[in-house]
């Protein structure tokens, strides 16, 4: 195309005028009077097909001016903060109105400028449109230009700002929202406190209805207006920021501020107190503060889509959530999304917090059950159970499974863990994972069985000792088990009909994904504390055996035949372990009951007969003083025996008793275990008497001093038929009591003991040793029953030769191989019935006796 000179001149002329007018328009603040003059020039240029040039030039000059006039100034507001050091920045943050004021003035300025420029754009737009109106038929470029003018302008503004954006600007925004949200939170919380101060305590914080009704009370109006004013301010800032193209930066800033506030709120509420549930009030708070804020904000910005319109169309599954929030009404979908996001975050935060402190929570378990409940709800929501397992196992290893923790404490914690995790996960899958390290550790402890049995039996006795607390737990568990058993029986009748079976099958739920498929389905995996305890030990036989020994000890030390509580415990154990395994224990208890009967029977019959020989009454002791516990020794654990020669008068009593027993219970005979039992005696000195409850051997010793007041230890030992060293050990009881004094005897290892008769001496000793008495007695309290370890050692000795034999021929063998070989080749009368654990403890005994060596996981003969 060829331009003639006149047309070119006209175009140039128009262009020059357009440029001048543009300059005037943009430069002149608030003066839009150029508009009318602008229109013909624009029309002229458009008719010449220069619409795009015209638009580009116009936008370019707008950009120049915007950059010059607004942007520089805008960033200058934030310059002091951005250019200061990190330390100074903290000072900025501390200032009360810091980002608030600067931000709003800066935004105000730049928006003013922008709105003016927008007006300028409108002027051009108007000019273009008027041109188009006049030439409607021709599809001109001007139409395109006018169409894209405004979006292009917006793009220009945001790109200019974003390219000049200082690094710290998001930070400033973040601070701003944090501060504002805190303010809002305080306003709401303040109203909350003042309003409910009287009927409001910590526990009631979870009380939903009270909380919400308060929101609607008239007195709240000021608060609402105050908070809505706050929200309006924030909304304005957000709108300004958006209009400058900072939409995503702004959203990031306020959502991170909300999350931050939520996190600190959760920490503040949850803290280190596990006795109150916090989940409820966290949720309430989410609705009260951040959601109300968001609602107000979204409404203010006009983003909130009308719910009615939305629901008619495609309805998000999320929107089907509870659709009424207090003080908000029907929520928009965006708000519902926010709600879910915030709740999830709250759950996760609380869960992490609780998991981190799970060890402490479980330590004070029954009190901390609200925290456990919270954790359960959180985990149901987040499904991060494995996090719990990992973190808890590591804290267990670090804090509980150490040499310093007593077995009792570990067991107690284990029981609490079982109970707590049973609440969180009734299927027991996670408990299995968590319990494994505890069980492994406890298996390595020698006193585990003893502690478990003590826990099982101690509770009933009302024992004041420290273990009673832990014991209660297990005994209570036994009781509960017994009740369950009854319930199950009852259920069985109703379960028969198919309807119930159908219901059961419908309520079936799959195991959690973490479940170990090898361990069987949950039906078999009933969480049962006693079962778990037994599984630590390996077999119930060991537990029953230990119980038998402890029961024997307890029964033998009784002098009153009172065994009510033991019978109750035994009944409970029978339910759990089966009749047959508790049979021996039952016989033991029956022995006691029989003893009581036979004892009174013998005594009444014996008391009648001595009347035939009166006169002897004075010297002889009456049968009245003797009570016998008659046991069927086959069913009792091996009993420690020790020879003891009792004084003739007592011996006479015993043999009379035994004779009488033989008469009543022929062909049975009574064999006395003279070293067992207790003797209550009273020592009479000049004008004074002392009472003691001692072991028979102590009584035998002191009774010898009736005959003569001084004995040498050797003579006394021979007289009593006990070894000298055991005599020396026992007699110290009396010297400690100040009843006897010790002095050098005829030769070095022979001592002379003399009765202290003088009262002053005794008194002196007594006061000094009073405290010592009980201590002495307990230390002296030798067990009358061979302990399980001793029994085991005795039983295992037969296998020692086999073990030595196989090690001679095979060199070294692992525990398993020894166990299996023993099982295979020990037959007939020597059949091998010990557990792997028992063998292990026996072998370690041999190692410590230096008979064997343990190297690289295998045993070998010590050379």
């Amino acid at each position: 195309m060829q331009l003639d000179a006149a047309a070119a001149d006209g175009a140039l002329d128009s262009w020059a005028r357009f440029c001048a007018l543009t300059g005037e328009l943009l430069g002149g603040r608030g003066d839009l009077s150029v508009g009318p003059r602008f229109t013909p020039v624009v029309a002229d240029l458009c008719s010449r097909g220069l619409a795009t040039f015209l638009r580009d030039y116009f936008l370019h000059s707008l950009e120049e001016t915007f950059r010059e006039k607004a942007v520089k100034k805008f960033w200058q507001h934030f310059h002091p903060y951005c250019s200061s050091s990190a330390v100074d920045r903290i000072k900025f943050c501390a200032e009360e109105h810091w980002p608030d004021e600067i931000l709003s003035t800066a935004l105000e300025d730049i928006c003013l400028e922008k709105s003016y420029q927008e007006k300028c754009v409108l002027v051009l737009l108007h000019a273009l449109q008027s041109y188009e109106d006049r030439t409607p038929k021709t599809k001109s470029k001007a139409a395109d230009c006018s169409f894209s003018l405004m979006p292009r302008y917006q793009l220009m503004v945001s790109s200019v700002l974003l390219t000049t954006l200082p690094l710290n600007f998001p930070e400033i925004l973040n601070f701003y929202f944090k501060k504002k949200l805190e303010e809002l939170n305080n306003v709401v919380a303040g109203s909350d406190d003042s309003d409910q101060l009287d009927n409001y305590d910590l526990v009631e914080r979870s009380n939903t209805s009270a909380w919400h009704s308060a929101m609607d009370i008239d007195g709240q109006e000021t608060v609402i207006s105050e908070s809505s004013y706050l929200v309006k301010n924030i909304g304005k800032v957000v709108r300004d920021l958006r209009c400058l193209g900072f939409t995503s930066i702004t959203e990031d800033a306020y959502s991170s501020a909300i999350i931050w506030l939520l996190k600190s709120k959760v920490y503040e509420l949850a803290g280190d107190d596990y006795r109150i549930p916090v989940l409820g009030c966290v949720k309430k708070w989410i609705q009260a503060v951040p959601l109300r804020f968001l609602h107000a904000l979204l409404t203010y910005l006009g983003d909130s889509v009308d719910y009615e319109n939305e629901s008619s169309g495609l309805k998000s599954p999320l929107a089907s959530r509870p659709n009424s929030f207090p003080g908000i009404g029907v929520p928009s979908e965006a708000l519902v999304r926010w709600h879910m996001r915030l709740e999830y975050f709250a759950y996760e935060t609380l869960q992490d917090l609780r998991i981190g402190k799970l060890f402490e929570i479980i330590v004070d378990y029954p009190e901390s059950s609200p925290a456990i409940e919270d954790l359960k709800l959180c985990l149901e929501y987040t499904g991060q159970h494995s996090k719990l397992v990992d973190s808890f196992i590591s804290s267990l290893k670090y804090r509980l499974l150490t040499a310093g923790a007593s077995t009792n404490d570990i067991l107690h914690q284990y029981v609490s863990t079982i109970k707590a995790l049973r609440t969180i996960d009734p299927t027991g899958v996670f408990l299995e994972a968590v319990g494994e390290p505890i069980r492994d550790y406890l298996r390595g402890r020698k006193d585990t069985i003893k502690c478990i049995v003590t826990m099982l039996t101690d509770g009933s006795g009302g024992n004041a000792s420290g273990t009673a607390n832990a014991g209660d737990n297990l005994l209570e568990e036994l009781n509960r088990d017994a009740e369950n058993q009854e319930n199950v029986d009852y259920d069985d009748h109703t379960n028969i009909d198919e309807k119930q079976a159908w219901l059961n099958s419908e309520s079936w739920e799959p195991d959690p994904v973490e479940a170990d498929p090898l361990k069987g389905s949950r039906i078999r995996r009933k969480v049962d504390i006693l079962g778990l305890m037994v599984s630590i030990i390996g077999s119930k036989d060991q537990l029953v055996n230990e119980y038998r020994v402890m029961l024997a000890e307890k029964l033998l030390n009784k002098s009153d035949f009172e065994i009510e509580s033991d019978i109750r415990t035994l009944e409970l154990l029978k339910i759990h372990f089966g009749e047959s395994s508790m049979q021996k224990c039952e016989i033991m208890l029956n022995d006691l009951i029989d003893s009581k009967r036979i004892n009174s029977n013998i005594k009444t019959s014996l008391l009648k007969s001595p009347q035939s020989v009166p006169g002897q009454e004075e010297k002889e002791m009456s049968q009245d003083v003797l009570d016998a516990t008659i046991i069927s020794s086959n069913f009792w654990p091996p009993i420690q025996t020790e020879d003891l020669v009792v004084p003739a008068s007592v011996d006479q009593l015993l043999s009379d008793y035994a004779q009488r027993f033989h008469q009543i219970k022929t062909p049975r005979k009574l064999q006395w275990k003279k070293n067992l039992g207790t003797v209550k005696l009273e020592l009479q000195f000049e004008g004074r008497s002392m009472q003691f409850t001692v072991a028979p051997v102590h009584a035998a010793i002191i009774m010898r001093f009736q005959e003569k007041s001084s004995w040498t230890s050797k003579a006394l030992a021979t007289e009593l038929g006990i070894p000298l060293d055991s005599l020396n050990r026992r007699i110290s009881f009396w010297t400690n009591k100040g009843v006897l004094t010790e002095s050098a005897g005829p030769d070095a290892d022979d001592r002379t003991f003399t009765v202290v008769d003088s009262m002053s001496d005794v008194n002196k000793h007594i006061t000094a040793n009073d405290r010592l008495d009980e201590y002495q007695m307990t230390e002296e309290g030798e067990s009358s029953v061979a302990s399980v370890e001793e029994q085991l050692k005795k039983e295992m000795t037969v296998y020692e030769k086999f073990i030595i034999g196989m090690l001679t021929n095979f060199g070294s063998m692992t525990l398993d191989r020894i166990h299996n070989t023993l099982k295979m080749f020990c037959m007939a009368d020597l059949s091998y019935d010990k557990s792997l654990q028992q063998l292990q403890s026996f072998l370690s005994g041999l190692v410590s006796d230096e008979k064997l060596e343990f190297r690289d996981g295998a045993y070998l003969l010590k050379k």
Partner: protein
Amino acid sequence: MARGENSDAQSSNVPAAAPSGAAAKPAAAGSARGAEGQSVVRRLQSELMALMMGGDPGVSAFPEGDNIFHWVGTIAGSAGTAYEGTSYRLGLTFTAEYPYKPPKVRFDTPCFHPNVDVHGNICLDILQDKWSSAYDVRTILLSIQSLLGEPNNDSPLNTQAAALWANQEEFRKMVEKIYKPAA
């Protein structure tokens, strides 16, 4: 010459392992034979019991693995002989005919002895024609133990050893050279 013997002795370790593998057969046969096999098992069990409880010093044996027809035995060289301080491991394999047939006994540890060949085979009358059902594991082991100190040089399996026997000092050196204690 001595060197050659040594390597031969080493190679004898290889066939020595064979009986333990083959031992499963008599066991299976034993159990198949029912009552008769059971009585052999019972006899071996009671012998094991007696051996363990008897506690003879210097001899010991124990069934290997889960097979009571194959035993591992251990003999300590008696004091005052060229074998003092050594400990020899043997393999004993019983048949279902035991105790009417003798067990097969061989040295697993290489042994320099006039009546033991390089493969560990033993030439001992009670293990061959002089066998009686009155013998048992314990007496076999004790016999072999005494054979170590009192070889029968008239019918040697190892002629070098028989020739060297007269010179006890040299003999002892050879014993130590061949001897490889079990791990």
